[in-house]
């Protein structure tokens, strides 16, 4: 099988992994609610938030790596001048 692009690998290994965890946490919060264990829901939501925050950090890192001179604001300004 063809070796994936390093960024595709990073998106899979980190971002999708974190989003998978986030999905799991939403299901956990729903299940806790159904079981009447509301006192445990806030901690689960905190873990969900943490997984989503980590996803955002990863995506920002990937966007920074993808930034080329042509898409960079400074570069566009210089080009216009």
């Amino acid at each position, binding site marked *: 099988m063809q070796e994936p692009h390093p960024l595709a690998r990073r998106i899979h290994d980190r971002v999708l992994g974190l989003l*998978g965890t986030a999905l*799991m*946490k939403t*299901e*956990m919060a729903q299940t806790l609610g159904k*079981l009447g264990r509301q006192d445990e829901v806030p901690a*689960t939501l905190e873990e969900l938030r*943490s997984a989503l925050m980590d996803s955002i950090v990863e995506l920002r890192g990937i966007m920074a790596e993808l930034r080329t001179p042509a898409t960079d604001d400074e570069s566009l300004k210089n080009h216009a001048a």
Partner: protein
Amino acid sequence: MFSHERETPRGSANDIRVVLADDHQLFRQGLKALLELERGITIVGEASDGLEVQRVSLELNANVVLMDINMPIVDGLSATRELLRANSEIGVIILSMHHEEGHVFQALRAGARGYLLKTSKVSEVAGAVRAVASGLSLLDPTVTSSVVSEFKRMSNKQTPEDGLGQLTETEIKILQHVSAGMSNKEIALKLSLAESTVKNRLSVLFEKIGVLDRTQAAIYAITHGIAPTAVQSR
């Protein structure tokens, strides 16, 4: 978090013994907590890499392993191959974010009996655990069509002389029982053979029909019209 003291007594001797292998600890924790709410399933161990999962599964006598593909040290596909070499009775279900058919085929070739996406609901994962523990195979509906297309292509290329004609009467019976989801032990009982004899005959059979594992053999039986119908099976 998610303590079990409010649950009914757990870990009965008849429970399906499951090992979770994933390098994302939070994902593992969540899956464990939710699966343990399911009747008849006990999480006996966890692993965060492909080497640890082999040791833990064998030591704790797992029935089913839920295995991620991307793991450190040894990946989930290699770990599956090695684990099944040590104990072919363990049912491995790949639980991955990969939906590409290449990964699915690699997983089936490695001997996995299930392939689910991590976007599956826990009730679906629990269903797959029960199915695989009872000797059946299960694929995520989103990857099934590509697998069916691939095996259709394979079966179109084959002729009856490709291997079916070379099978003895007993081998055909074994193949039928494999396609019905029976374990070696069950086949041995059914045909009054030793379990080791069934294992040996299966290796010869796989070679004759050109397949690598039970899943491929079952699909071969279906595509060649020798699999028993649902009424006949078991």
